[in-house]
């Protein structure tokens, strides 16, 4: 078991790490050489290499530099400090969760409506499908600025962006799920003279659960991206997106990388959480994987 799945993954990760360290050398060398020319000193090869792994503003931070920065700004800082990544992560996360919750709820409601009303189905569904091909994130800056100008700022505008980014995947996935029971199952319920509400609660809704969770995973990742992008237009100072922006303005590359890793860890954590919820729910519904 270990040999089959864990060992290959560890090997691949190990190779990636090695390549990363190796890439730091050529990428950061220009700066080292520049410094040497200025000071007139010389360095041995190993000193040169060590330098490329320890610069303050490297073109490519070494893994341990990123890890150190992550450690420094999470564990070593008070949560209330403006420099704490946990603080910034929470700002982004709260907008994400609020938006995700709104988007998912509305999405499920619309999906139920689409499945039960032909008019709604034929009017809205084509637009929901088309919207998946449109980069709706392009609306994000406008939403932020417009709401800002009428006095709505902070978490709510970002949450709105997160909401509509998760909305459409949830609608499409949920409709697919609610429609997934096959003709045989639906016929069986008709022989019991079940009405639409009974069919919904006893058959369609349980059948849609796997599809719902698949869409939730996509939706939560999209919501996070929405919240991050929402922090860019007004030059916000709080949140992971703001940290990314600040890092890029001031050339603080290690800060950029640590913010990116924090966002990645957040995304992975959210998706994993939903995966866990999925396993628990499916197990309680009788599916034994």
């Amino acid at each position: 078991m270990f040999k089959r799945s864990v060992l290959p993954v560890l090997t691949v990760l190990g190779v990636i790490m090695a390549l990363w360290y190796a890439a730091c050398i050529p990428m950061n060398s220009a700066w080292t050489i520049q410094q040497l020319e200025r000071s007139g000193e010389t360095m041995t090869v190993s000193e040169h290499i060590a330098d490329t792994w320890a610069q303050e503003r490297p073109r490519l931070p070494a893994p341990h530099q990123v890890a150190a920065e992550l450690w420094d700004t999470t564990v070593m800082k008070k949560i209330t400090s403006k420099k704490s990544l946990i603080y910034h992560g929470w700002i982004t996360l709260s907008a994400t969760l609020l938006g995700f919750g709104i988007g998912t709820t509305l999405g499920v409601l619309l999906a139920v409506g689409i499945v039960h009303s032909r008019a709604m189905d034929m009017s809205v569904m084509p637009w929901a499908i088309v919207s998946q091909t449109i980069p709706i994130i392009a609306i994000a800056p406008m939403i932020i600025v417009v709401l800002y100008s009428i006095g709505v700022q902070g978490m709510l505008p970002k949450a709105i962006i997160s909401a509509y980014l998760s909305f459409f995947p949830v609608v499409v996935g949920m409709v697919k799920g609610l429609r997934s029971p096959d003709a045989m199952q639906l016929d069986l319920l008709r022989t019991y003279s079940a009405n639409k509400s009974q069919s919904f609660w006893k058959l369609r809704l349980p059948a849609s659960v796997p599809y719902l969770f698949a869409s939730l995973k996509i939706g939560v990742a999209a919501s996070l991206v929405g919240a991050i992008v929402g922090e860019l237009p007004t030059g916000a100072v709080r949140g992971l997106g703001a940290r990314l922006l600040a890092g890029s303005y001031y050339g603080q590359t290690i800060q950029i990388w640590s913010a990116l890793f924090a966002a990645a860890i957040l995304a992975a954590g959210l998706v994993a959480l939903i995966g866990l919820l999925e396993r628990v729910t499916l197990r309680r519904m009788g599916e034994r994987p």
Partner: protein
Amino acid sequence: MIHVVGALILWGLGWMLNARLANGPRANTRAVQIAVPVIFGATILLIWELIVRGLSVPLVILPPPSMIATTFANSLPILWADFVQTFVKGALSGFVIGGVAAFLLAIVVDRYDFLRRGLLPVGNFMAALPIVGTAPILVMWFGFDWQSKAAVVVVMVFFPILVNTVAGLRDTSDIQRDLMRTYGASYGQTLFKLRLPAAMPFIFNGLKIATTLALVGAIVAEFFGSPTRGMGFRISTSVGQLALDMVWAEIVVAALAGSFFYGAIALCEKGVTFWHPSQRS
């Protein structure tokens, strides 16, 4: 006030019309299936126009569709230049480079089982991450121009295409693989005659997902820094000037580009995977 009343009446009329069509005898014809969403969309646009004019909504909050249309028509050269910068140079080139790279790696991964078992979990993990966050780093490495945007697109489309292609290459039944063995076929023959054609539905699934990601990546990357061209650039600067009609015009361009790109890939898919059950129903 009369505009708002008009809008409400229009909403009711539109809904009744669609309900009639959707539940009527001709509901399954192509004509009706196209008419209903179009009526829905047109109704929304009209209501938008009426409410914005009727309630005198400030232009810096929400301009009416008619104004957006005028701005669109008057700004075609700018919009075209933005389109070329973001879509053609940024999204399209990144899509091609990322797609080819992912495809080639997928074939290597398929060949060596150890590599597949190691790389696929990592690839699935990477596909779920907010890759747009790499934009500032890539701008730092590749400069402000389209190359950094293409680089962001490469990273964004790489993992979905890789994961889908690997899944597709494995989607052959035991019978088909055994049959190849009975012919004494080589790895290359099996790859070209069986696995690649069988993988096409999966590959196109990945490509379709990638079209949206490519455009999103190129636009968002421009939010982090861009020369004085590009859809993302235009959106963020117009937003700053509160020229919302221009913003909406760019959004229309983005929407058109997105659906056109997706539609082109879907058309190719129809041609290549004509044999798949999903294309035949």
